[in-house]
């Protein structure tokens, strides 16, 4: 065994082709998603990729409003790419949980589920009679994840919140970007997604407790609070020095050199994280003497503001004369960090990412060939996997209600007439592709 190289061994251990032959980490965990937009759906998506059976519950007809958020108004086969990327492997049903019969349906599902995730305004579920207090009476083992802007009992509990609310109020925006410019809203929904990851971690911890004790619990995660937690040394710096963390653009003032630089063609990240890497970078720059220069000879010396600024300038002047690809090669031979700034096209064609399943191509029964980012962490024995994309509103109603709740076709028809459940309205974002044959993707109960 020892004769096999580490990388031949790890390539085989994680081989993407074998994923569907392996078991799943969250087998048997049923999750109810009562969410719209991003924060909640991403939480459930993280679980769905690792084998949880996620039932996404939307309002009949129009469904999750995220269905209608689309880049430049672009829809593909009547679905938005802004909706698909956070809704994988889920079962799509509809229930108007605010109605008495809808509440009954939800309670019946809760009795058979492990986790419920919601991202309504704090207290909404409770006011509809289906809050944690009501549902834990039905199922004391229920893990109830409440996602919101500011938490379930904050002074801001009544304020609506989107991702950028949390970016603004957490201090995240105040430390991102260049000095003297308008504060920058980060180009991704980073408050939603970070909060979602916190929620997923919390759910897993609660699940571990549940497996020991049978006990469920209430979890409360806020977007803004999640971002505050991730702002590294900002708070210690503020309280120890009483100075404000300012804007430094593309230069890291706590790790040097580390930043984004202009190369002859495109931009590139360059960093040296210890003295050995720094000596490597100096050799690559053909300035080996810098490694012994007292301004730069230790991590701490390189962080003195004058030294850091001078070093950043030297690296910038060096990098701009080379192609990014040349710098990456030098990083490999000299042992420092360098990585070209890449975009979606680069990802799409990246052989490394494809082999790792990080860029993942799969066949959806309704939409055909799709390409999405694969599961985050790669697990050798119980890996995550991509099965299918989001589906039209209420697409799996019949399958879920008949198999899980034993409802008859007649009962389903009644509930549909009363608009307690129901499928899609005739609207782009909600409905199947125009050329759908009425059968593909339907799961027979």
């Amino acid at each position, binding site marked *: 065994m020892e004769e096999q190289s580490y990388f031949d061994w790890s390539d085989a251990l994680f081989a993407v082709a074998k994923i569907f032959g392996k078991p799943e980490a969250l087998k048997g965990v049923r999750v109810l998603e009562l969410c719209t937009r991003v924060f909640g759906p991403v939480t459930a998506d993280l679980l769905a990729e690792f084998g949880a059976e996620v039932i996404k519950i939307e309002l009949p007809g129009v469904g999750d409003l995220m269905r209608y958020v689309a880049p430049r108004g672009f829809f593909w086969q009547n679905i938005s790419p802004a909706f698909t990327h956070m809704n994988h492997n889920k079962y799509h049903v509809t229930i108007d949980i605010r109605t008495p019969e809808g509440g009954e349906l939800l309670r019946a599902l809760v009795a058979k589920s492990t986790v419920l995730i919601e991202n309504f305004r704090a207290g909404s579920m409770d006011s509809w009679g289906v809050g944690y207090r009501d549902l834990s009476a039905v199922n004391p083992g229920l893990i109830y994840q409440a996602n919101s802007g500011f938490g379930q009992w904050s002074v801001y509990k009544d304020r609506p919140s989107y991702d950028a609310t949390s970016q603004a109020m957490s201090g995240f925006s105040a430390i991102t970007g260049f000095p003297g410019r308008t504060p920058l809203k980060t180009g991704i929904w980073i408050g939603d997604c970070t909060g979602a990851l916190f929620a997923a971690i919390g759910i897993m911890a609660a699940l*571990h407790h549940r497996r020991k004790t049978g006990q469920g619990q209430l979890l409360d995660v806020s977007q803004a609070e999640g971002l505050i*937690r991730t702002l590294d040394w900002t708070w210690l710096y503020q309280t120890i020095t009483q100075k404000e963390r300012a804007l430094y653009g593309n230069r890291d003032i706590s790790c040097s050199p580390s930043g984004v630089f202009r190369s002859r063609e495109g931009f590139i990240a360059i960093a040296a994280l210890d003295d050995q890497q720094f000596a490597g970078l100096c050799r690559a720059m053909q300035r080996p003497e810098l490694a012994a220069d007292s301004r730069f000879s230790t991590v701490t010396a390189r962080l003195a503001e004058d030294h850091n600024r001078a070093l950043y300038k030297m690296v910038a002047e060096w990098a701009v004369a080379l192609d990014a690809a040349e710098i990456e090669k030098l990083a490999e031979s000299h042992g420092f960090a360098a990585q070209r700034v890449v975009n979606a096209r680069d990802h799409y064609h990246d*052989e490394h990412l494809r082999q790792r399943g990080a860029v993942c191509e799969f066949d959806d029964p309704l939409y055909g060939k799709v390409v*999405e980012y694969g599961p985050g962490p790669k697990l*050798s024995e119980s890996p995550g996997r991509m099965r299918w994309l989001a589906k039209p509103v209420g697409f799996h109603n019949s399958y879920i209600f008949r198999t899980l709740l034993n409802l008859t076709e007649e009962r389903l028809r009644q509930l549909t007439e009363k608009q307690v459940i129901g499928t899609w309205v005739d609207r782009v974002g909600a409905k199947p592709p125009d050329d759908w044959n009425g059968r593909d993707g339907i799961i027979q109960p």
Partner: protein
Amino acid sequence: MSDDRDPKDSWYDWAREQTDPRKASRKPEALDDLLVLDISYGNVGGLVCSSMLAELGAQVIRIEPPAGDVARDYSPFGLAHQGTGFGYLAEGRNKYHITLDLQKSASREIFATLAKHADVIIETYQPGVMDSWGLGYRQLREINPRLIYAALGTYGQFGPRARSGRPGSEISNQAYSGLVHINGEPEHLEPTEYGVPTKVGSWYGWYAEGMFAAYGILLALNFRTDTGKGQMVDVSGAECIMKFIDYNLSWFHMDGKVKNRLGNYDIAVFPYTFIRCQEGYTFLAAYNDEAFETLMEIIERPEMAQDPRFSSFQHRTTVENEEALQFLLEEWSLRYPVDEVIQRVQEAISKKEGRAAAVVTGKVTQPADVIQEQNWWDRGVFQKVNDPTYGELTLQGPAWKMSQTPPRLKWLCRPIGADNAFIYLKYLGLGSSQLAALKQEGVI
């Protein structure tokens, strides 16, 4: 049903009673049956990962070389507090700190013995380094089949780029993920220093890597509870952030379009932007039709809701129309201090219901003001810790409120090797004379 409930028994009070962080210490911890070895080096992602587990109750042994982890030196302007940089100080929480020099073979035996006891190992060396020391997953699983072994980095442990020997880094994670490409102001006509792909200010590359690693470890733990089997968890910080880059890849596949940076504009929703006010900025969003109408009432331009440029979200998200709208909004907001702008919005939406009330705002707040905010203190988001070594310091508390197994902040950090005596005695039975000998040999 809620109608039967005593109105005094409000959800908010009840939720607070159940999840108030001040009551955390009276309750059990979710992960108190786990022993974690964190052998990360020069990578704050590893520290974040073990912090998450430690906040949730795991016993974490943080293992550094005798001279300390170089990450102790990563700090703004190189500042240190009693010898440790602020970044490490923030993520040293709840951990036992010991030293061990893995360059020496005697140390490797000690590590293997610790690994027999461990549930989780977290490492951040270059791929293959631990393996070359005989301490990789394929060796350790032989002596501990239940072991969960997490390896963190930028390029992962398999696939062609893992073999390249190129080190990863926080900023490499940001760049490779695609985040930097779509963050920042667009190129201006004349090249500027600021019209460039822009990193986010915090160490997000490391936080995403560490948090996803904690998630992967807990997934593996659930699998182990089912089957008794351990496994390896491979985490690329770059791929972790990719998961969060919304429709980037799907849009390219479906439409051949590349998402580029647009400053504070947004191609999927608008208004969804930061606006300038007197003495500050606020976030302002109203992107569905009903909310947009409310917003136009707030800025006293109700007729604009019918303007063909703005009458649907597709129209509102073209470049020209976003610029026109931004101008309209600031024409109004510049008349008021930022707090008044926010107040006017809150007042207006309190009179609306449903989708028409979805006008959303939030002040762009400086860290100095964030930390003054009483709400965050009430919620335990900030906590003062009086540490025997480091004195009284303020740092960010755990991000979860949990009713049964709340996370908690127990202590701050420890100096290099502070827990050698306790940990080596507890797990290896090494008394003080044996430790002194090992110290002499430079093992610890």
